């Protein structure tokens, strides 16, 4: 067991300054205004504010004192936290999924970073360590990754080889060239015009306060800004963000599925977006869903190269695809031509979509269960859908509307391939090689 370590003592101040200004503003507007008219109102307000700050600081100080982390004798990370409900969490590093370094705006101003550690498991299986200096956060991440890879903990930072940066212009253009964006622009105009018509120009003010629909696109842009991919022995390292920088590491062999997405207007440019599902990564609070983006936009060739790194040795293009029976035309008149299914020894491939083309490549070893479904619209046509159940994430994989016999055949093949893949899976402690696993 290593000695207990604490996060940086400045933490209470940083934490309080992330939420207190907003809280104070809200309180001032709701409670403060009527108080101002009263005698001594201003004194009450100032007194209240001081009290509020003191309470917040006091609470955050207690929780800072309580938060400690160390490595136990098995080499796993223990995190102790909680003021009222105290808990001690053991994060089994052999099941480590990702270690992210996040720099929220306020923390970044102070030069601090937060570390988020995720391990595989149902439900809440993560720990947040906030805040550390950027140096400490980087060192700790390297230590955790080295320990989880089965190396000595003082192995130092794995050398990094930069692979690509998504140009800001491409990102901006790609976000604008989406049907969703067009819809959001129209919605924004509609909301603005209708509120001006009903309440006059003050309506516009309310619209901006309430948030314009188009803001979703800006959020996505800000989150994906300066998207950088680098290869290190720990895995693929992704960094991005304008106001809040995120850094994620995707360890090799933890990738369940990758999705290639081609919206209609991107096709002329030959652009693709990649999403990835990593086992155990719980879906969290990020609005634009950028946590699952492997590559926001890139030419197909670049995307294929990156894909080859997260799923080494897989040639998804060479997988033989089969098409559903002709009854599918009556179930999916628009996209039927693009529905296809295929498997090889390593992966299952699903393609679908006419307007936005999607292709999922799923690792057999990560499929949790196979589901065959038949709805009332499929039954008279003799069709059925095969779903490949994956750990929670952005990618959903299924083979829609295949003939019954085809679906049964696909299911049997998939189950067989899953069993073989599971038996030969050795992604735990990946750096020790097959014998040490």
């Amino acid at each position: 067991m290593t000695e207990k370590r604490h996060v940086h003592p400045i933490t209470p101040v940083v934490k309080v300054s992330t939420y207190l200004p907003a809280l104070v503003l809200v309180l001032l507007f709701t409670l403060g205004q009527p108080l101002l008219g009263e005698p001594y109102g201003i004194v009450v307000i100032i007194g209240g504010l001081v009290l509020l700050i003191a309470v917040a600081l006091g609470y955050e100080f207690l929780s800072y004192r309580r938060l400690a982390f160390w490595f136990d004798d098995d080499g796993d990370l223990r995190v102790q936290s909680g003021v009222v409900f105290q808990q001690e969490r053991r994060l089994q590093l052999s099941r480590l999924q990702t270690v992210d370094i996040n720099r929220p705006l306020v923390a970044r101003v102070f030069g601090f970073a937060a570390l988020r550690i995720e391990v595989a498991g149902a439900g809440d299986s993560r720990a947040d360590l906030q805040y550390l200096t950027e140096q400490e956060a980087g060192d700790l991440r390297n230590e955790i990754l080295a320990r989880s890879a089965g190396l000595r903990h003082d192995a130092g930072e794995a050398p990094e080889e930069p692979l690509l940066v998504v140009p800001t212009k491409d990102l901006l253009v790609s976000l604008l060239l989406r049907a969703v964006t067009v819809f959001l622009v129209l919605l924004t105009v509609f909301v603005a015009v209708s509120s001006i018509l009903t309440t006059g120009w003050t309506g516009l003010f309310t619209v901006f306060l309430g948030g314009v629909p188009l803001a979703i696109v800006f959020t996505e842009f800000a989150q994906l800004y300066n998207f950088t991919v680098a290869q290190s022995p720990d895995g693929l390292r992704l960094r991005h963000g304008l106001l809040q920088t995120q850094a994620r590491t995707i360890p090799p062999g933890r990738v369940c599925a990758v999705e290639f997405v081609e919206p209609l207007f991107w096709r002329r440019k030959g652009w693709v977006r990649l999403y990835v599902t990593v086992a155990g990564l719980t879906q969290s609070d990020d609005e634009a869903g950028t946590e699952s983006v492997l590559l926001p936009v890139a030419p197909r060739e670049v995307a294929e190269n990156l894909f080859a790194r997260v799923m080494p040795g897989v040639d998804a293009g060479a997988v033989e695809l089969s098409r559903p029976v002709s009854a599918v035309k009556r179930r999916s008149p628009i996209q039927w031509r693009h529905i296809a299914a295929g498997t090889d020894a390593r992966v299952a491939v699903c393609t679908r979509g006419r307007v936005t083309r999607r292709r999922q490549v799923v690792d057999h070893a990560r499929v949790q269960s196979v589901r065959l479904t038949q709805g009332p619209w499929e039954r008279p046509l003799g069709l059925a859908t095969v779903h490949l159940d994956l750990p929670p994430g952005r990618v959903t994989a299924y083979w829609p509307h295949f003939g019954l016999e085809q679906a049964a055949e696909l299911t049997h093949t998939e189950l067989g391939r899953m069993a073989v893949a599971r038996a030969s899976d050795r992604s735990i402690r990946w750096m020790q090689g097959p014998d040490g696993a």
Partner: protein
Amino acid sequence: MASAVDAAFRVEGDTWHSLSPKLITARRLILSLFAVAFLVVAAVMAIAGAPMWMAGLVAVGGLLIEVIGWPWIGRRVRSWGYAERADDLVVGSGIWFRRIVVVPYGRLQLVDVKAGPIDRAFGLVSVQLHTAAATTDAAIPGLTAETAGDLRDRLAARGEQRSAGL
């Protein structure tokens, strides 16, 4: 059982288990309680002086629930079934939306056995299987406590044997 989809999974030697017929009784009891609640509301409305047609509508609604739900429950419970195969558990359910879930034993993360108050009165419990995928959704309701306990133990043992990383 009758669905064509199921044929896909009928392998020689599989024994397809159905749910306990007592589940039909238990579910019909719950249904009847609902219907009775509607009738009570209708009666109260009539006594309290609401227009007769309104009270009548509520009463008819209650009767409709009973009449439509009664045979539906029978079909739905009978549509359910499961088979323990060599490497996986197969659970089939549904009439309109027929679905068959195949869960390899090595993928099972936990097996829940639970029972509500009415089910318990009939000596029934339900078994819920969980994998790392939230979409797996394999549940077997209406087993006798003994069957469910045995099933859970067998699943746990096989899961242990064949457990794989994520």
